[in-house]
């Protein structure tokens, strides 16, 4: 299986005033295509930093970040933006939906960047909403939906352009246990049935259990966790 994500000797430090705070110290990671990987660890251990680097939202200070065969460290800001639009779907803890747009309007956003016709965009939005089980809520605005439904809209938005990679930052962090399980099952379904590679950051060990591979960051290093269930 080829590597969907490959991080090699990645170093990342943040500036806090005059001080430089190191987060990743020569971190390496290989994630083959089609894996569902959970990333756990204490706050400040670098989980979100890894997600941002893999998603092309941030640059490493040194090392290589290769995603889908693309060396992200060589791409400019504009190139990264284009690359993200076609290759990565993002799922956020607080959904990050546009409150004035309907569910369909939110899901359509990534498709506005394509040259698809209006009818084709509508067809794909309908499919995405159907996959997440919200076809009948297409015209509802985020404020009219529960947290779980909003996260499903967020997932539909992430998959509507059919990217091979999904990056999830605490996707169940704002949901109750039952709803969180539904969302995690949906992610599993996307991984198994739609062959999406998923990298999920979470604090929740039960959420991590839904992944096929579990990893943990601590003090800028990465460790494999023993698999409890998949």
């Amino acid at each position, binding site marked *: 299986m080829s590597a969907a994500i490959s991080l090699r000797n990645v170093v990342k430090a943040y500036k806090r005033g005059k001080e430089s705070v190191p987060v990743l110290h020569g971190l390496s990671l290989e994630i083959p295509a089609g894996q569902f990987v959970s990333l756990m660890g204490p706050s400040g251990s670098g989980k979100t930093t890894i997600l941002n680097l893999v998603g092309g939202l941030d640059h490493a200070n040194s090392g290589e970040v290769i995603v889908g065969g693309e060396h992200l460290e060589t791409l400019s800001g504009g190139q990264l*933006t284009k690359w993200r*639009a076609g290759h990565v779907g993002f799922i956020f803890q607080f959904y990050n939906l546009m409150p004035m747009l309907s569910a369909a309007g939110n899901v359509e956003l990534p498709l506005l*960047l394509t040259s698809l016709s209006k009818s084709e965009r509508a067809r794909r939005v309908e499919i995405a909403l159907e996959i997440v089980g919200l076809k009948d809520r297409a015209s509802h605005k985020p404020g009219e939906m529960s947290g779980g439904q909003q996260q499903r809209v967020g997932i539909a938005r992430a998959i509507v352009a059919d990217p091979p990679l999904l990056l999830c930052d605490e996707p169940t962090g704002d949901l109750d246990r039952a709803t969180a399980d539904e969302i995690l099952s949906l992610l599993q379904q996307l991984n198994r049935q739609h062959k999406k590679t998923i990298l999920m950051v979470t604090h929740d060990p039960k959420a991590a259990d839904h992944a096929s591979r579990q990893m943990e960051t601590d003090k800028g290093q990465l460790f494999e966790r023993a698999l409890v269930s998949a």
Partner: protein
Amino acid sequence: MKYFPLVWAAIMRKPTRAVLTLLSVMLAFTLFGLTIGMNATFAKFKEDARDDRMFVFARFSGLVPVALERQIESMPGVEMVASSSGIGGYIKDPKNRVFVQMMDDKVAKVNPEYPITPAQWQMIRDDRMGMLVSKMQADRWHLKPGDTFVIASPMVKKLDGTMSWTFKVAAVTPDMNIFGQGYMFGNFDYMDKARTLSDQSKTGQFRVKVSDPTKTAEIAQQIEDKFANSATPLQTLTEKVAFDVTANTGMDIAAVDRDVALAGMFMVLFLTANSLAQAVRERFAEFATLKTIGFSDGGVIGLVFAEAAVPCLLGAGLGIGLATIISNIIPHFLPPGQGLPIPTMEVMVFVWAFLCAALVAFISAALPALRLRQMDIATALSGR
């Protein structure tokens, strides 16, 4: 066009703010339209004014003996002199103010540009109570040829002790730019013979036409000099000066108008810039999300510019529309024939308004756009 729902949703996120911003922009552009339209009127007055004519009237107010007409006409360089005077009053109710310019026979020759045919002039010569009413005034008072009506004039008393002046509409004539509220022309002789003896054979002003336009100022000075020590010292005013609002008032009214319009634009600029900056600040994380899912810097900045442009352009359109309506309505509430300027909503006023609206939108959006361009997505998403 596919991005419009996104722009519209952003604008309507706070409907009250959106509506108030739109109303403010609309009112500022109404003011802009009226002031710039007024400048267009002043420019047109100046352009239409002729070099070879002047007005002559009493230096210290009051009426001028008609007998002076012949003396002025006999002066070298003077081609023709006409008399005109006015009856100001009202129809039925004091609030229905009107003003009739009573013209002698020669006005038709001194002012040949008036859109009145010789036959129509002849009508008010043949019928002393005859009146030529411009279309605007005819519409306002529901007058048609043959109608008779009375103007009460407390200022111009009649010989019989009354103040009622009866007129009969001889013809309805086209309107003129110079009389923005329309006009009413009557027969000078009718007025002169019917008013009190002390005011008879006197006129409000002479209209003097000279044969050589280059000598108008010189002849004007000669007229003033000639009558300086008479019982009725005269003052002259060339038509160019009379219709040049700057020369006439000693103030650069056009510049004042421009300043007022500019102040309105600054008000709009501060308002829209502030609203937009606030809107962008509130939605910083949303813009970060858009950039995360693939919207380019240019795309996000384009959305912000569109968000600024919609209220500015829409407000400008509505404001200029309102200014057009107001400038069409104003004449109906002013007495006719006094040459009070009415804003001219010509094409250039619309062009200027839309250019200014676009500029205001651009400047308003510039700073928020710059902030979005410099946005660090990861930081913005984390809410730090």
